[in-house]
């Protein structure tokens, strides 16, 4: 068996786990809960095996030494690793807090990332390392960045849950914020899914696919009618999420997840993610840039967006400690932080150009 088969097993396991966790949430049967955890652990184990197998395969192809063969050099590999980190952080939380209900909210993020891989049609091939990436800093910089991204993603999930649990009034800003944010997330994913279905046949190379076809079947279609329908459709979808979002509150409440726990988890993930991001993302990145490009900081879009992300989370910590912000205000900052994170990670590669361009292929 090769790494792709183990990746396949883990993808299927996570998707089954997602369904099982949701079943657990609805029926509250502890047997179902144990099954969900078991499936997640199997998926995680399988992905861990796959990760190291791919590392080995990469080592054999690249002949660059073990430190430089870490399979984290393109968008596909980084997304896979991102999923791995999320599941790892989740399993730690499940173990520490003895609470399985989060599984139903975290596994969908993993599922969405895996779905994104398939519907965007990105390349899954192993490519040998280009000279710029041949550095021992690759391992430290990329792994730590992704661990930070994963903690931010979990903080986002718990943040959205917090907002869902604590908002009643459909006209309140916080309610509108969380429903619209989650709605836009889903809309983008659905739109990319439509792109995939529409263009799969004519896409010549998978690398070019995301960049050149993004939203071409919907918002950027050549037909004005399709564009109009897309906007009307997404507006209707957002309205739907806004109208029925309160149901999520009932679901979470039925599971005795307190808002204090959610707030605490959001904070803890950011408190761990922020220094990891500072060290691995910004500092190690700067040292590497200094060695490879002769500049520790060159205001390249990726660097600039990391700085913006860093500012948002720095603001989160200052507002919390200095101003004692709690509740909706501080949680909204955490959610915005992850939007900035996503843009740093994906948006920069898909929409902008710059020195970090290899992350997009």
């Amino acid at each position, binding site marked *: 068996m090769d790494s792709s088969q183990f990746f396949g097993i883990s993808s299927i396991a996570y998707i089954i786990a997602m369904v099982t966790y949701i079943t657990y949430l609805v029926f509250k049967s502890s047997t179902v809960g144990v099954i969900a955890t078991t499936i997640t652990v199997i998926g995680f184990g399988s992905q861990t095996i796959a990760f190291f197998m791919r590392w080995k395969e990469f080592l054999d192809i*690249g002949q660059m030494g073990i430190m430089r063969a870490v399979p984290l050099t393109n968008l596909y590999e980084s997304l896979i690793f991102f999923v791995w980190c999320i599941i790892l952080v989740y399993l730690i939380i499940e173990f520490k807090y003895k609470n399985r209900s989060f599984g139903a909210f975290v596994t969908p993020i993993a599922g969405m990332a895996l779905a994104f891989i398939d519907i965007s049609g990105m390349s899954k091939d192993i*490519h*040998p390392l*280009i*000279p*710029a990436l*041949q*550095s021992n800093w690759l391992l430290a910089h990329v792994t730590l960045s992704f661990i930070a991204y994963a903690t931010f993603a979990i903080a986002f999930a718990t943040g959205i849950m917090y907002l869902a649990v604590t908002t009643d009034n459909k006209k309140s800003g916080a309610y509108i914020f969380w429903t619209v944010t989650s709605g836009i997330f889903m809309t983008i994913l659905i739109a990319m899914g439509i792109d995939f279905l529409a263009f799969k046949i004519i896409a010549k190379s998978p690398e070019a696919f995301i960049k050149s076809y993004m939203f071409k079947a919907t918002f950027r279609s050549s037909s004005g009618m399709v564009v109009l329908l897309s906007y009307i459709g997404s507006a209707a979808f957002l309205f739907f999420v806004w109208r029925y979002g309160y149901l999520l509150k009932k679901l979470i409440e039925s599971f005795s997840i307190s808002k204090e726990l959610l707030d*605490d988890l959001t904070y803890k993930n950011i*408190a*761990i993610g*922020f*220094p990891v991001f*500072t*060290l691995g993302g910004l*500092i190690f990145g*700067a*040292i590497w840039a*200094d*060695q*490879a*490009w*002769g*500049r*520790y*900081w060159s*205001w390249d*879009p990726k660097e*600039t*967006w990391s*700085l*913006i992300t860093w*500012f*948002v989370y*720095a*603001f989160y*910590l*200052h507002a919390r*400690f*200095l*101003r004692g912000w709690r509740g909706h205000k501080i949680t909204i900052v955490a959610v915005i932080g992850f939007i900035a994170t996503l843009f740093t990670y994906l948006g*920069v590669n898909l929409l*902008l*150009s*710059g020195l970090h361009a290899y992350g997009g292929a």
Partner: protein
Amino acid sequence: MSAKKENQGIVDKIWNFFSSITLAVVIFALISVTSIVGTIIEQQAEPERNIKLLSKFVGESFAPNAYRILDVLGFTSMYDSWWFLSLLFIFSANIVICSIDRLPKIMKVVKEPIKPLSSEILNTMPIKKETLLKKKGEEAEKEVVSALKKIGFKPIIRQENPAGGLQICAEKGKYSRLGVYVTHFSILLILLGAVVGIFFGFNAYLPLLEGTSSAVAYQREGKKEIPLGFEVRCDDFNTSFYENTDTPKAFVSWLTVIENGKEILKKEINVNTPLRHKGITFYQSNYGFSPSKDSLFKFDVTSSFGQKQSVAVKFGESFVFPATNIAAKVIDFSPALGQDQSGKLYTYAEMMNNPAVLLEFSEDGKPKYNQWILTRYPQTWRVPDGIIEFKDLWGAQYTGLQVRKDPGVWLVYLGSLIMSIGLYAALFMSHSRVWLNLSGDKAGTKIAIAASVNKNKAAFEQKIEKLLGGLHG
């Protein structure tokens, strides 16, 4: 800070303005929002590129005007524009002043050792627990002290209560309160390092053709010459590829440093391993191909009798197989020769991906045959009269070196290190204090615990539980 709003002098007002978190937030927001614009508008690019980009947003007719407006505002080269640098300056001033503003208060807390407190004050502490110990007197005290040590509280203060009984108190991690200021200080250090780099360093470029040397580098804008203080020579440049692909594996330059006519340092550099000499660093940045009639074709020639020889000739010149009268002349060259499906040869790249030469062979001046020798395909090296390996076209490629001097970089590294320490202290460590009142009882010793912590309360409560657990035995 906002204690005395009235009778504020102008200095106080400015001070308060600069020390406020509101300013920090406004600056965070301004730097972020302008930076976002800076990541969309391509920096220091040809105007046409940005006009094309802008026409997608504002329409083609208005795009040139939009570009002019952005250009005047400095957005086309915004990270070194006066207003962006001012924002960074205000950001630094904000950090300095808010730290000075808060530091004395924090220093007082840090300097002042923990004191025994009255039970009225202890009753207001956020964490309160009680337990009963079977032991009495000194034995009980010993056990409490050892339990405290077990959870990390070491210097322990004890005091007999005037009303009878004993109070033991201890604290831990008080210096972690400085973590925030250490982090702020590290940001200043990094910015200072950047300023030192801008004023006392340079960023330049140096293209060097194989075999040539230079004692100066060139600034990217204005092409100003910057003397290096020594000479650097490119002995060779080579791109290697992954087997049978056009994916580059390494860009390598062989450099020699020459001072006063003497070669003092030789180094092979590639993208991630630069050459450093006298505070100046040479990075492999790019490369190019510009052959001339002086470029040398280098071959390893083996005759059919097994004699081997290395030769170098110019275009149009001939060499002979060792100890024979068979000669070969270079009559054509391609930097990247490939074959299409019909077997026709064509040049598929402008760089030296698969350099090839066409050799005309002759014996005693009479032409015999022609053959293409392709670097990448050993089967083409074999000719009827021996083996010819095409090693290199030397003196045809130039290496593009990024040349940098940055005396501030160590400040940036030091700042980064301090920042890591500061963040660790600020986020993962906390200042915790604990007071225990021990009072004798018939059954043993009653212990009342009061404790406080400046953050991560839940984790600290677990520690106190552990302390209680340690006291049960």
